[in-house]
């Protein structure tokens, strides 16, 4: 995200997203499709509910002893001949990777499955060091050619039409391209195949790491994860500390629910378990393997209010069901991780002030909790975040005064009844066709993008007191 984009207020970004007709349609189609696929996958999988509980329990239990599991992981990766690095900040993570690239004389790096490297803005740092980073997931590749950012965790280019992709390929790759997904995919295959074979460095994230065995696990549908971990001389995996699971047995529980939640597949096409550099007798596999363990704000939440968010598998299910995400898409959020979980992750990584506006970009409807394979209670944490943001006087004064008044009203029945009566009189000039669409300043801001239902002519309490029907 460029600074210019970030200085645009969230409301404005959301507003322009809602005016973009293609984006609106693409979002509706994509999210609706993913919701349906997910539902079908779990409908045919009766043990799914129990496995979700199990997965969550494993995540919690692992966090409880995260130090021990990480020590085991580190010992096993080193036993297998790999190197482990420790990064407290994104800057530290960047310089670790850049140093590896320099030391090994890398000119080109192929990348796969790497929200974590997106998060630390690795590509810019590599370019500055003279290493060309190439995104190899088709969606990410398109985004990189267009100098944009992903708009969905698992479908990064849903905001682009095939026509736009064809134009992009024709312009950037100097290959005449037809607006046909099949043909475009063929072009990308040929282009990227060359890169896989040439690259010196393979950079990935990790979906999981198995402590017991020192295994890094990558899940992809395209096969780019396999390419990146098999062909280049050096493999660097950048991983948030929370991705560790104790054993293969635990891993299987997650694999059984991850793809179902993301795309409705029983399993993604490729699940690659890589354990250190290549061994004696092997034709492929990296000579060097590096694991970069990333804090970036995660560690402070192990005992903090956002602890639950550390269980996130990045499946994207909560994005698809979120009424706010479905309206505005990923870009409007302005940070690496969009959607409801993205707000929490952004608060974790960037600090609460970064989500002053975003913390309110949720209707708290709870659809995300139901969809989440590990049942993360996102609304609960959003409410806490809002409170924190409001306490820090980060909200506009009008909002703080309004909420302070509301709190008083709700605590005092007599005051509440009086306010309801007063409201009925005061709203008269503003109510039209049963809605209030414009309020005077300083409340005008609130009704600029929403309607307010008018105060009812009789409150529920008044009806309760007089209506026998209501009580019958």
């Amino acid at each position, binding site marked *: 995200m460029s600074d210019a984009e970030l200085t645009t207020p969230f409301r404005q970004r959301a507003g322009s997203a809602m005016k973009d007709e293609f984006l609106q349609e693409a979002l509706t*189609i*994509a999210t609706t499709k993913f919701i349906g696929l997910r539902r079908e996958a779990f409908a045919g999988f009766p043990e799914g509910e129990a496995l979700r509980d199990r997965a969550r*329990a*494993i995540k*919690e*239990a692992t966090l*409880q*002893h995260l*130090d021990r599991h990480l020590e085991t992981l580190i010992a096993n990766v080193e036993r297998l001949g790999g190197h*482990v690095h*420790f990064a407290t900040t994104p800057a530290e993570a960047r310089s670790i990777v850049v140093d590896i690239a320099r030391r090994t004389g890398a000119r080109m790096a192929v990348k796969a499955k790497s929200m974590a490297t997106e998060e630390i803005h690795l590509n810019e740092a590599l370019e500055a060091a003279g290493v060309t980073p190439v995104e190899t997931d*088709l*969606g990410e590749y*398109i985004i990189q050619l267009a100098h944009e950012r992903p708009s969905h965790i698992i*479908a*990064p*280019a849903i905001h682009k*039409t095939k026509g736009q*992709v064809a134009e992009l390929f024709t312009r950037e790759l100097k290959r005449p391209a037809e607006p046909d*997904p099949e043909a475009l*995919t063929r072009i990308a*295959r040929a282009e990227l*195949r060359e890169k896989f*074979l040439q690259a010196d460095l393979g950079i990935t994230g990790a979906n999981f790491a198995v402590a017991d*065995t020192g295994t890094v696990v990558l899940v992809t*549908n*395209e*096969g780019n994860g*396999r*390419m990146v971990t*098999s*062909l280049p001389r050096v493999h660097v995996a950048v991983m948030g500390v929370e991705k560790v699971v*104790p*054993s*293969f*047995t*635990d*891993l*299987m529980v997650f694999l*059984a629910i991850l793809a179902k939640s993301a795309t409705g597949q*029983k*399993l993604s*096409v*490729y*699940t*690659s*378990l890589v354990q*250190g550099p*290549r*061994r*004696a*007798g*092997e*034709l*492929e596999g990296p000579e060097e393997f590096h694991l970069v363990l990333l804090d970036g704000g995660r*560690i402070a*939440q*192990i*005992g903090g209010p956002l*602890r639950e968010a550390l269980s996130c598998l990045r499946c994207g299910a909560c994005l698809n069901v979120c009424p706010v995400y479905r309206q505005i898409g990923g870009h409007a959020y302005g940070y690496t991780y969009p959607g409801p979980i993205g707000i929490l992750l952004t608060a974790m990584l960037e600090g609460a002030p970064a989500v002053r506006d975003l913390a309110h970009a949720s209707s708290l409807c709870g659809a995300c909790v139901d969809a989440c394979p590990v049942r993360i209670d996102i609304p609960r944490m959003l409410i806490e975040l809002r409170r924190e943001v409001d306490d820090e006087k980060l909200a506009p004064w009008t909002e703080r005064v309004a909420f302070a008044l509301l709190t008083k009203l709700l605590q005092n029945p007599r005051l509440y009844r009086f306010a309801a009566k007063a409201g009925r009189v005061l709203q008269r000039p503003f109510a039209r066709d049963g809605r209030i669409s414009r309020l005077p300043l300083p409340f005008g801001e609130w009704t600029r993008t929403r309607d307010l239902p008018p105060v009812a002519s009789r409150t529920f309490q008044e009806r309760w007191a007089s209506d026998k029907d209501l009580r019958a």
Partner: protein
Amino acid sequence: MTTRAEFLERIREQVRMSPGRSPASSARRPQHPAAEAETIRRELVERWPETLEAFRREFEGVAGVFHRTASIDVVPAIVARIAHERQAREVVTWHSAALGADLAPALGACGLDVHPMPAAEPSGGAERERLRTLAARADLGLTGVDLAIAETGTLVLVSGAGRPRSTSLLPPCHIAVFDRTALVESLRQAGVFLEAWHRDGRPPAGGSAINFITGPSRTADIELTLTRGVHGPKEVHAIFVEQPIRG
């Protein structure tokens, strides 16, 4: 730069700050995975036809092409037919020891150019490069299978000497040969085998990669249109051999 000690100490501090915030329970791990894996195998001696049928259904559900034949001797003819239908000639294969049979002569007799991968590590960079180029140019890649998971239609391949990762990855068409000894019913059972290989240190091969392959490579990144063969193979075939391959 953060040191390992500092990094882990900060985690320890946090862990201490959050004692027992939730009931701690992890997935039950098999106590004796090797014995449990044996039990699974034994039970499947009876049930394999149903398991195979379930595998076929799921494998075809992810666009895999399933074949069944009586003995390994018929496999070259099936491979040749697949090749001829695609006007393909170049075949890279795992080493005969890894496949469980030497199919190269028969494949050659069917008019294919066969390149078996060596059993030992190539002696130098040039040889390594040559073999990789062969795999990158080949039309078909022929491999064995270490586990076939019925629940998901998944083939599990362990890398190692004579069983390069590229054979199932670089050619546009991957053909995998397996018998009933590879069959398991579920992901959970596959987990037991993984635990067993790890715990008693006797995996099917000594390489550093274990790949789960569930159908051909796919993407839906352009307007959600499902497209196959983006980086990995566009086609995956599984040939089931009724008589155990290793006799």
